[in-house]
């Protein structure tokens, strides 16, 4: 089954409290912008590991997930 950006978005939202999430992708390569207060206090590596943990075995058919992870504060400052 082909993985859609919408599915990746739902998978992440099921396990992570997201203020904002946007996912683009072609079925194998995805790009995500994820804003969550659960990222607060974590370094970039821990933030990415948290998203991968939420995705778990669903990462199998996902060849690559390029991520930008932000806390709500960082998101507000960026906008």
């Amino acid at each position, binding site marked *: 089954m082909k993985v859609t950006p919408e599915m990746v978005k739902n998978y992440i939202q099921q396990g992570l409290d997201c203020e904002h999430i946007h996912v683009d992708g072609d079925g194998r390569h995805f790009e995500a912008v994820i804003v969550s207060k659960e990222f607060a206090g974590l370094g*970039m*590596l821990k933030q*990415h*590991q948290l998203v*991968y*943990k939420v*995705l778990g075995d669903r*990462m199998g058919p996902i060849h*690559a*997930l*390029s*991520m*930008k992870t932000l806390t709500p504060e960082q998101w507000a400052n960026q906008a």
Partner: protein
Amino acid sequence: MDAKTIALEKIRKTVTENPIVLYMKGTPQFPQCGFSGRAAQVLKACGVDRYVAVNVLADQEVFDNLRFYADFPTFPQLYINGELIGGSDIMVGLYEQGELQKLIETATAH
């Protein structure tokens, strides 16, 4: 020991015995994936000319098991002094902040 244990031990040995290790698809000269190519370019931009690049496409055990080593399921992966730094997004992010250069400087200073 099963194949997974052997592979994880091999990875541990590689990342702890070498200051800078990049697990990638292909080689720095001929990367087989855009993200791996970007990772090699970031190291080059940091002025790193000597590091261990492991082509995961040429090592099935490492390819299958690297994701378990540091709970990171994608390639490339950069290790400095035995610690996972991250994949290509994190490498680019740290490079833009000037942090990757510092980590590398510390790792290669003798």
